[in-house]
C-alpha cells in the first residue's frame, strides 16, 4: 500500500498479513508542455500586452508553485476585444458560408487531438485534476465537441425545419475553473459553427489551457478576431457582459455570480444562457447492481475532486440496502488514491484553489457540528498543495447545510428513503436542478423517475457521462438554456421564417 491510500475494513488486516504490493509512481512527463513565462491577451489573432500593464500569477494547486504570469486585463482591454470581435463578425466570419466555417472547426478539432497530451498535462498542472481524467475525459470530449459542431456549420438550414438561422453577433463567454478547456469547447464550438464571434474570459485560477487554445486558433489560420481571450478578475467579466456591443452572454459558474450577471444585463436585448450550481441526488434503489452503483457513486462525487456542478453530492439510498451499500462505499473510499495529479494511478487530485479548499473545510466542519457522522479514509495527504480527504457523511438530515448547500468538493452526504415517491420528493427538495442519477434494474421505474425529477440531466445506472450530442443544463437555480446537441446550437442563433 502506497501513500494516499488506506485499507478497507473488509480486508481484515487483523488476521491477514501485509503483502508487498505497491503501485509505482507513474508521473506523466510534464516537459511536453512548454510554458511561457508570461501570457498576454489574445485579441485580433495576436498576443497583446494588457493596457493596464498588470499581470497576475497562476499556480499549480498540487504544489502551490507558480506556473506563469498572465495578463490582468482592464475595461480598456475588454473594449478592445469586443471591438475586434465585432469587426471580425461584420467583415468576415458572419458572412462566411457555413461550409467554410466548418473547415476551420474541423481543423481545430484535429489539432486538439494531435496535441491532446500537451493539453491534458497543462490542464492537470493548472487545475489539479488527475491526469487520467484530463487524458481520458476532458480532452477527448473537447475534440468531440468541435467535431460535432463542425458538422452542423454547413447544415444550419436543416437544423430547425421550416426556419432559417442567423448568427447573433458577438458572444461574451465566461467559464469556470473546474473544466477550463471543456467549458471553452462547449462555448466556442457552437458559437463559431453558427457564425458568431466570441470574447472568452477564463477563470483567473485556470487561464492556461485557453491561452494554449489561442495557439491552436493561430495554427488553424482562424481569421483574426473570431476568437478573443481576455484574462483577469471578475470585474472585467461583468464589464464584458454589460458591453453594449455584446449580443449574447453565456456563463458557467456559481449561482451567485449568475444572478449578478442576470441583474447586470436586465433591460437589454442580449440573449443569455446560464449554467450554474447544483446539488444532485444520486438515487439508489434496492434492486440496483450494488457494486456498480458504488462505482457510480464514487465517480459521481469524486470525479474532479467533486468540483463538478452536476456532481452527485447527495446520495439517496433505499433504507433496506443502506447498510450493505454504505459498508461497500466505505471500503471503496479506502482504496482511492489521493495525491500527485500527474500520476496516472491517482484517483483524486488537488482542490483547485485555496479559497475553495477553505470553503470545503468549513462545510465539513459544519456537517460535524450539525451532528452528521463523518467518515474519511485514513489516507496520507501530500504535505504541500490543496488536498482534502474523500469525505462521507451518514445520518444526514435534509435540513443540514451539507444536504442543502453546494460544497463543490469531495464530500458526499448520505440520506435514506423508503419509497420511490419519497425519493423523488427529497431529490426535488432543493433550489437546484441540474442533474440526478437513478440506479435500478427496473426500466419502467427509470422512465417514471425521469419524468418526475426536476433536473436537466438524469443518468440511469451511470453518472457524470457526457456527450456532445446530448443537451446539458438546469432547472430552477441551476440556470437556463442548454449546451450540447441541437438545443446548444439554438442558443447561438436567431430563428427567422424562410
Amino acid at each position, binding site marked *: 500500500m502506497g501513500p494516499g491510500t488506506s*485499507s*478497507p475494513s*473488509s*480486508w*481484515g*488486516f487483523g*488476521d*491477514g*498479513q*501485509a*503483502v*508487498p*504490493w*505497491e*503501485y*509505482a509512481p*507513474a508521473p506523466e512527463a510534464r516537459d511536453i508542455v512548454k510554458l511561457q513565462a508570461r501570457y498576454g491577451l489574445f485579441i485580433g489573432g495576436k498576443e497583446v500586452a494588457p493596457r493596464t500593464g498588470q499581470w497576475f500569477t497562476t499556480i499549480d494547486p498540487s504544489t502551490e508553485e507558480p506556473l506563469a504570469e498572465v495578463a490582468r486585463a482592464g475595461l480598456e482591454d475588454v473594449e478592445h476585444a469586443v471591438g475586434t470581435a465585432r469587426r471580425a463578425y461584420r467583415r468576415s466570419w458572419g458572412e462566411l458560408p457555413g461550409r467554410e466555417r466548418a473547415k476551420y472547426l474541423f481543423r481545430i478539432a484535429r489539432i486538439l487531438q494531435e496535441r491532446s497530451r500537451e493539453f491534458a498535462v497543462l490542464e492537470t498542472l493548472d487545475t489539479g485534476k488527475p491526469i*487520467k481524467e484530463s487524458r481520458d475525459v476532458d480532452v477527448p470530449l473537447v475534440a468531440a465537441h468541435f467535431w460535432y459542431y463542425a458538422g452542423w456549420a454547413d447544415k444550419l438550414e436543416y437544423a430547425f425545419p421550416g426556419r432559417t438561422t442567423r448568427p447573433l453577433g458577438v458572444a461574451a463567454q465566461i467559464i469556470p475553473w473546474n473544466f477550463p478547456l471543456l467549458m471553452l469547447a462547449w462555448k466556442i464550438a457552437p458559437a463559431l459553427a453558427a457564425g458568431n464571434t466570441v470574447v472568452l474570459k477564463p477563470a483567473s485560477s485556470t487561464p492556461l489551457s485557453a491561452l494554449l487554445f489561442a495557439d491552436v486558433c493561430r495554427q488553424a489560420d482562424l481569421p483574426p478576431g473570431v476568437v478573443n481571450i481576455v484574462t483577469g478578475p471578475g470585474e472585467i467579466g461583468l464589464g464584458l457582459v454589460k458591453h453594449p456591443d455584446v449580443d449574447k452572454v453565456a456563463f458557467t459558474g456559481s449561482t451567485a455570480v449568475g444572478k449578478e450577471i442576470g441583474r447586470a444585463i436586465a433591460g437589454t436585448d442580449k440573449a443569455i444562457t446560464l449554467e450554474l450550481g447544483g446539488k444532485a441526488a444520486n438515487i439508489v434503489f*434496492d*434492486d*440496483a*447492481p*450494488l*457494486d*456498480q*452503483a458504488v*462505482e*457510480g457513486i464514487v465517480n459521481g462525487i469524486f470525479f474532479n475532486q467533486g468540483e463538478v456542478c452536476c456532481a452527485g453530492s447527495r446520495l439517496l439510498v433505499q433504507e433496506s440496502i443502506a447498510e*450493505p451499500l454504505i*459498508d461497500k462505499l466505505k471500503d471503496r473510499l479506502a*482504496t482511492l488514491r489521493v495525491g500527485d495529479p500527474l500520476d*496516472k*494511478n491517482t484517483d483524486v487530485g488537488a482542490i483547485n484553489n485555496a479559497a475553495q479548499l477553505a470553503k470545503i473545510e468549513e462545510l465539513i466542519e459544519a456537517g460535524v457540528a450539525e451532528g452528521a457522522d463523518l467518515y474519511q479514509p485514513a489516507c496520507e495527504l501530500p504535505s504541500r498543495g490543496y488536498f482534502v480527504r474523500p469525505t462521507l457523511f451518514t445520518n444526514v438530515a435534509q435540513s443540514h447545510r451539507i444536504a442543502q448547500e453546494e460544497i463543490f468538493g469531495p464530500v458526499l452526504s448520505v440520506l435514506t428513503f423508503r419509497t420511490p415517491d419519497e425519493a423523488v420528493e427529497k431529490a426535488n427538495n432543493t433550489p437546484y436542478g441540474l442533474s440526478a442519477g437513478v440506479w435500478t*434494474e427496473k426500466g419502467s421505474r427509470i422512465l417514471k423517475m425521469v419524468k418526475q425529477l426536476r433536473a436537466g440531466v438524469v443518468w440511469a*445506472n*451511470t453518472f457524470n457521462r457526457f456527450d456532445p450530442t446530448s443537451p446539458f443544463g438546469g432547472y430552477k437555480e441551476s440556470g437556463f438554456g442548454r449546451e450540447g446537441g441541437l438545443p446548444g446550437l439554438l442558443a447561438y442563433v436567431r430563428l427567422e421564417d424562410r
Partner: protein
Amino acid sequence: MSSGVVIRSRSMYDASVTSTLDGIAREQAETRAHELVRAWDGRAVGLGGLLGRIGSVDQVGIEERAASLAKRSIKRESKRWALDLVIRMIDLTTLEGKDTTGKIHALCQKARRPDPSDPTIPSVAAVCVYPARVADAREALAGSGIHVASVATGFPSGQTFLELKLLETRAALDAGADEIDMVIDRGAFLAGDYAAVFDEIVAVKAAAGEAHLKVILETGELGTYDDVRRASILAMAAGADFIKTSTGKVTPAATLPVTLVMLEAIRDFERRTGRAVGMKPAGGIRTSKEAIAYLTVLYETLGPRWMTPDRFRVGASTLLNDVLMQLRKERDGRYSGSDYFTLD
C-alpha cells in the same frame, strides 16, 4: 471430515459400504450447505430463498471498472514479488486427448523446477490433468508437495449421469488426486433448475471429502454477468472451496470482468457467511502483464488476504514460460529468446 477419508480408502466397487458412508457424508454436507444458505439470506429457510437477494451486475459498469484497474502500474519490486507469486499460484494444466504418461511426466518436471537454470524460482501450485492421468502425475510429483488436481464430473460438458460423476470423483481420489475440479451442470442451470445444480455440487463435495473442491462455472456458456454471479453464489453455498471460471474448452474462457464479478461475489459471500472461498480464473491468461492485471483486480477487490495460492489459482499452460521470461529479464536486465525456456 473423517468420513471423507474413509471413503477415499475404500474401493469404489464396494458398493454396499460406500453407499452407507456416502449417506452420512452427504447428510453432513447438506446440513452445512443449508446453514450457508440461511446465513446468506439472513432470514428463515423457505421464505429466505424467495426473498434473499443475489443482486445483479451492470455490464457496462463492471467492464469499465475492470478496464480502469488494468491500467494501474505496479512498482518494480512489487512486480518481481508478483511474478514469483503468479508461479506459485499456477495450476499447470494439460487436458488433451493425446496426453500420455510421457507428457505428464515431462509436465511434472516443469512444475517442480520451472527454470532449471535458476533454483530460486518456486514450484507451481498444482498440476491439473484428466482423471486417467492422475496416477502418472502422482508418481512424478511424489515428495514435491505439488498438488495433483483432477478434472472430474464428465469434464468438460458435465453431460453425464450423476452416478458416473460421483464414481469418477472417487476414482480420481483413489488414484491420488488432492484437488477435484468439477464442472457444474450448465444444462440444468440454464433451464432454471438451480436446485439440481446445487444438489449435484453438494453430492460431489461429499464424495470429494477432504479434497479441495473447485467448481467450474464455465462462464463462457452462461452468457450474462448476472448468471455468473448467481452461479458463483450457488456454488459457494453448496460447498465449493474454489470457484473457477472455465474449462478452457469454451471461448471466451477467463476474462477480467468475469473474474471481477466472481471476486465481488466471493467478497459478498464472506461478508454474509464468514466463509472465505478461493478463486481460479482459467484459460486465456497467457502473458505476465495479463496475470498482473488479474492480481490488481484481486488486490483491489479482496485485499492481501487473498494474495496467496491457498485462495487464488491461475489455470494456465503457456503463461508459465512468459513469467519465467519476465523474471529472467528482471534478473539479467535483458530478454532471452523463447528457445532458452523449456517447453515442458
